[in-house]
């Protein structure tokens, strides 16, 4: 997958299905927060 395509898909998703885009953002936040906790615990 080209990264430009990924960006375009995310923008399309945000525009056409904001609820799904919101869910994706929540998932990304959850992952990054978990990683931050794991790294901080080192």
């Amino acid at each position, binding site marked *: *997958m*080209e*990264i*430009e395509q*990924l*960006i375009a*898909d*995310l*923008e*399309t*998703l*945000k525009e*056409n*299905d*904001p*609820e*799904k*885009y*919101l*869910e*994706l*953002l*929540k*998932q*990304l*936040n*959850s*992952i*990054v*927060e*978990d*990683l*931050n906790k*794991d*790294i*901080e*615990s*080192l």
Partner: protein
Amino acid sequence: MGLEDFDKKSLPQQGDAGFATDEMISGLYEGAEPSAEQSSIAAPEVAEPAVDTQSADLDAESAPIAPLTPERHAEILEAIGEEETRLEENLATNREVISAAETRLDAPASEENRLKPLLSRAQIGELYKKTAQKLELVALLGLIGTGASFLTGQITAGGGPMVGMDTDALEKAQHFVEKGQHIAENGLAAGIGVIAIVAIAQSMNWLRRRSQEKARYAAA
């Protein structure tokens, strides 16, 4: 499977088509540091990587979406703004915690103390699994895995090509990482989700690299 199908109840399970197996995941962490020559060697007899561009296609336009009421739409847009802000803050924290951990782990101390608290390979394997389940973008995770691996050039297992990788996949991974870094460095507005994905890949790569230090120390 596209994002329109996103449903936590249908998260991929071990054995599902396209789901990264334990062998694939563990293969990401195994192997010694390759030489530059090794890094450029094509995999002669490896399976195609588990990258299904059809599955990775977010396909946001294909499914009919029930129209939202103006009130609900406004609520969602507000929530999106909050989540994007939260993501920016989390990504800033991500850079800070990695920097702090680097400083802490590299501080003068006994080797044993410095390496003792690092995550085990199995723990990082669990991180990959957890990430896959949360995103439910298994094909995209494949790119994250190869991209993260490419960052340190650790693409071989036991001196041979890593299972599930070939030159084409590595070229794509390199392109993915380079573009992602460009977007992150330039703060392009449209790329917050991609920046997050790249940051996730880099964080996991950092954890993996540190765990390999631990493994080398333990073996010494």
